[in-house]
């Protein structure tokens, strides 16, 4: 029994979500291998080989793997899949994009967002925006799953000494091509990996207010910025800041929800946070039902005060 973990990376750095996925793979039992499919991604392969618990790294390097196109990455996974009992992807935008393609080609069902490993064939996963937890059993030859990163601690990035084996890269599918990307550059921690998140809702009122009020607080706390769907839909915050059922699932040490009412879809994305603080002027807001510390106050008064007090 061996689990293959598909590494998430940007060709230079191994992303943290891979480490959580490796922990899930270790809990399955058996060996853990990691596939690094990228272009000029030797540094990623080296980093993966150093992760505790990994016994082998497969490295496929080719320009056709540079941008993580689903068609090519799935083909690369399938090229090595026959050796594995389990194939795990982080449940990130990239992992969710590729995993079902692999499962369908192997003619097996896929498990999405597993949050707990019960045994080698039984797992827990949230359904209905986390309002119910399903225990599911998969008795197919290969278990293909995406792993909810907040459900597993990250594996230690050092301590391992796996061998790196080069595998031949697949050819380009010829059906899709990468045109360009717009990745916001900032010095903040990544939303899904941040220890502290400051998140704003519709009550922020405008994009300018969102930045004016929340940025200094996030700076002071060294926090990532998040937003509710309402705030994103209103254009106050970028799309990829959305925390919730269909956005990012986060579980920081501290989640500060400001002007967020707390729709069930939002709670689904943050209720596993260790400590939740809510600041809202509506004392009936559902967010207070999950908040460890609630402050009923006008956020435009309370947040500047909070910044001063920190």
């Amino acid at each position, binding site marked *: 029994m061996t689990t293959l973990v598909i590494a998430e990376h940007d060709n230079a750095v191994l992303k943290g979500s891979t480490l959580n996925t490796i922990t899930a793979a270790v809990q399955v039992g058996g060996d853990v291998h990691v596939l690094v499919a990228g272009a000029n991604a030797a540094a990623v392969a080296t980093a993966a080989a150093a992760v505790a618990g990994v016994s082998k790294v497969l490295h496929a390097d080719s320009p056709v793997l540079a941008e993580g*196109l*689903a*068609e090519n990455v799935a083909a690369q996974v399938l090229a090595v899949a026959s050796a594995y009992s389990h194939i795990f992807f982080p449940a990130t*935008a*990239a992992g969710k*994009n590729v*995993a*079902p*393609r*692999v499962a*369908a080609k192997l*003619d097996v069902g*896929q498990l*999405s967002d597993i949050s707990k490993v019960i045994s080698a064939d*039984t797992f827990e996963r*949230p*359904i*209905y925006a986390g*309002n*119910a937890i*399903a*225990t599911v*059993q*998969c008795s*197919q030859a290969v278990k293909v799953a995406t792993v909810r990163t907040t459900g597993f601690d990250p594996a230690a990035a050092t301590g391992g000494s796996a061998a790196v084996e080069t595998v031949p890269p697949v050819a380009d599918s010829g059906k*899709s*091509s990468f*045109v360009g*990307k*717009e*990745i*916001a550059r900032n010095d903040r921690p*990544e939303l*899904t990996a941040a220890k502290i998140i400051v998140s704003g809702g519709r009550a922020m009122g405008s994009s300018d207010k969102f930045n004016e009020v929340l940025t200094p607080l996030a700076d002071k706390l060294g926090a990532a910025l998040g937003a509710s*769907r309402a705030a*994103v839909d209103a254009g106050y915050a*970028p*799309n*990829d800041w*959305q925390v919730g*059922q*269909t956005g*990012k699932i986060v579980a920081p040490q*501290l989640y500060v929800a400001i002007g967020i009412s707390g729709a*069930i879809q939002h709670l689904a994305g943050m*209720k596993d946070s260790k*400590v*939740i603080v809510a600041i809202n002027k509506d004392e009936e807001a559902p967010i207070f*039902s*999950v908040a*460890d*510390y*609630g*402050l009923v*106050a006008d956020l435009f008064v*309370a947040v500047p*005060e*909070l910044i001063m*007090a*920190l």
Partner: protein
Amino acid sequence: MKVLVPVKRVVDYNVKVRVKSDGTGVDIANVKMSMNPFDEIAVEEAVRLKEKGIVTEIIAVSCGVTQCQETLRTAMAIGADRAILVETDVELQPLAVAKLLKALVDKEQPGLVILGKQAIDDDCNQTGQMLAALCDLPQATFASKVELGADSVSVTREVDGGSETLKLTLPAIITTDLRLNEPRYVTLPNIMKAKKKTLEVIKPDALGVDVTPRIKTLKVSEPPKRGAGVKVPDVATLVAKLKNEAKVI
């Protein structure tokens, strides 16, 4: 160009579901059902492409129980031209749905299939990608912008950290994200018109697809409850609690 738009009937997004006390699932008896919100966005996108004159026919498809006909009528009220229900009482998992859809893609030969990125009941986020794999077609998931040409489509996708743009050859598979569009309100005249549109009902057997579930649900339970904490009177108390009690700052 034909566009195929699969739609799923799910528990309305405003309903807070309850887990059944015997742990066999969630209670959906007498609960409001609606079209999966992402699928509504998919139908809207197809209709907009038709209004631009690029798309000539929109076929809505649903797989599931008889009542999915209501969901298909809604899709036709938004603007789909006709509908197909693949009717079965069997619990359908994404791989089975993808196989049913592949059979319909083979039959109808659409230039584009637009699906919602995930259904808000099982939260799987699989069907579009599986369909693309089974049909050997290119995919662009989590779309926030679609520009359709004669033989290719340019799609901007929401990815971690921002967005990226891909170009796919046609036929292609697209799954929608929230910001692709805002679906129109369905008007009464359009609801009336939708009643007259063709709705074909077929069985999985007729498509030669085995829909037996691959993954077994052993039990469904309540998530661990998170109790409400305390309300603090002011900012100073909040900071003190975070420093001394929670020790998170």
